[in-house]
């Protein structure tokens, strides 16, 4: 879409601690350019905290590189300007602004003050395209607060698209969605991953099986396992963490909710 280069994410030995408690304990992972990487793990495994570290929300040690740029140590808005966009576990669209205004703001971080001082005239092309992509063209003028839960999540993804994010970090994007909405979201992720790198935190195993290209399992702040969906599912350590006891690979069934 943007025609910019694809970059991969490289996380090396990242550590985050809160008052002595180590939430992320030396995580290293490589997400190649254009991947759809799923980050799974039990509650409290440190998934969100890892994304917080990558996006500058919490202080971390180690190294996080996106393309050639080191991210750690930069303030949040500078990291964002390097093309890293994220969503949150809870929806954070601007409810008192319209869908169009939400997207326009997301698209505008590089605008000059002179542009900011003027009104928006019409709908910029990239925003019209994003509205189509996320299927909200008909709701453009409505307040974001009036959208259904799933639509808010799509709006968030649309905001990352117009923001020109080349790395998308999505924290439980399909939580609370209906079956159809999950499918639609998955298809949307496949579409946007054509020219972006996508990392998805998710608990939904069915969603993962359908749309993950690769998986990293976190447990207690460490990487427990990594590989394709099949490899990870067959890993006895993963089964132990999720089910409490090892199961042989043939009968490996992970529940709907991890």
């Amino acid at each position, binding site marked *: 879409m943007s025609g910019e280069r694809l970059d991969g994410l490289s996380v090396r030995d990242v550590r985050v601690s809160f008052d002595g408690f180590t939430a992320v304990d030396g995580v290293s992972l490589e997400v190649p350019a254009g991947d759809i990487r799923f980050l799974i793990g039990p509650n409290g495994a440190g998934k969100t905290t890892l994304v*917080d570290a990558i*996006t500058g*929300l*919490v202080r971390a040690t180690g190294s996080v590189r996106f393309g050639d740029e080191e991210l750690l140590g930069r*303030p*949040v*808005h500078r990291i*964002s*300007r390097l093309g890293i*966009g*994220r969503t*949150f576990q*809870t*929806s*954070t669209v*601007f*409810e*008192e*602004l*319209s869908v169009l*205004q*939400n997207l*326009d*703001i997301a698209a*505008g*971080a590089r*605008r000059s*003050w002179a542009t*900011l*001082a*003027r*009104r928006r005239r019409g709908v910029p092309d990239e925003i019209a395209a994003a509205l*189509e*992509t*996320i*299927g*909200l063209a*008909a*709701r*453009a*003028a*409505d*307040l974001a*607060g*009036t959208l*259904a839960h*799933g*639509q808010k999540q*799509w709006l968030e993804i649309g*905001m990352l698209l117009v923001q020109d994010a080349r790395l998308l970090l999505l924290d439980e994007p399909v939580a609370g969605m*209906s079956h*159809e*909405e999950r*499918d*639609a*979201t998955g*298809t*949307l992720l*496949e*579409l946007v991953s054509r020219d972006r790198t996508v990392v998805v935190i998710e608990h939904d195993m069915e969603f993962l099986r359908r749309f993950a290209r690769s998986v990293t399992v976190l447990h207690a702040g460490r990487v427990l396992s990594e590989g394709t969906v099949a490899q990870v599912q067959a890993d006895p350590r993963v089964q132990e963490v999720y089910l409490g006891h090892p199961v042989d690979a043939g009968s490996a069934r992970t529940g709907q909710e991890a």
Partner: protein
Amino acid sequence: MTAVTPAPPSTAVRPAPAGPVPPGRPAGRSRLRTLAGFAFGAALLFAVAPLVLSDFRLALLAKYLCVAMVAVGIGIAWGRGGMLTLGQGVFFGLGGYAMAMHLKLADAGPGGMPDFMQLYGQLDELPLWWRPFASPWFALPATVLLPMAVAFGLGSLVFRRRVRGAYFAILSQALAAAMVILLIGQQGTTGGTNGLTDIKGFFGYDLDDPVNQRMVYFIIAGTLLALLALTRQLIHSRYGELLVAVRDGEERVRFLGYDPASVKLVAYVVAAGMAGLAGALFVPAVGIISPALIGIVPSIEFVIGVAVGGRATLLGPVLGAVAVAWARTALSERFPGTWTYLQGLLFVVVVAFLPGGLASLWALARRRDVAAQPQRRGRLSLGRRRAERTEVPAA
């Protein structure tokens, strides 16, 4: 899910929105309504008020309109930007003192010293920092630029450190207290508790003459309208939308690549400039500026008017400020002493039961109308959804 067009959601998955999608208000009509509104306001201020009000009442209205200017600024900073500033008196005072110093020097004539300095008598020449104010070319811009500069300095320190909410409110209030203490402490050069009083002339016009008082009123009314026009432009600009986004989700905006501190700073500085201008025009209208007019109590009163009128709207702050200032005059004439309590009660009631101010009653009535038309039902869920809003975890 159709595999052909991955463009997903609403059409494929959800039933289409209940009714025809409101296309948004046509820009032409909204502009027309605004022009009509301004014409109405101008007619009211420039034709009706001078006709029906006595000179005394018109002078009071001039004073209220100055308060309304401060309110417009608070509407931007607080209503749109979420910064509850309880210290606008500081900026009002800076503007007021800058103007009053110039007028005092003009009254005293070239080389002269203001009367109070001679009265207190320790000075045999004009203090250095008074001197530039002799020139209108310095003093007039200073009434606006000085408050803006102070707001810029304070805002740069505070917003980047993510001081907000109650902490910001308290800090801004402390500034008002500090300024009053400073002014009172420097009695010899500031007039102390009395302030700068007895201002007689305004750029060659005698302020005792009712005709000139009327002229001052017209200047004030015109300035208020101009500030409203400016504010409307600001609210509808991209910046105005961004400011609301910062108010509702400062962290989220940061993740979109903006620095919210600078977004807030602009609104705060603009609000300070408006308060400064208001203070400057207050001086010829009332003939005095003093610590009692700019301290904590007046600073809070500015905010109460805004809260009552409706802080997030364009006209709410103006109408609220005028209404509260008028009620204050009317009630404290009749029941001296009760006003303070009444005012406090008013503030509590509004904040607790009507956070959108009186303007939200108006919006509610309009929404009722909308509800009467069945095809637009969908929008009614607004209130409930808003209550569910969650915050991005703070750093």
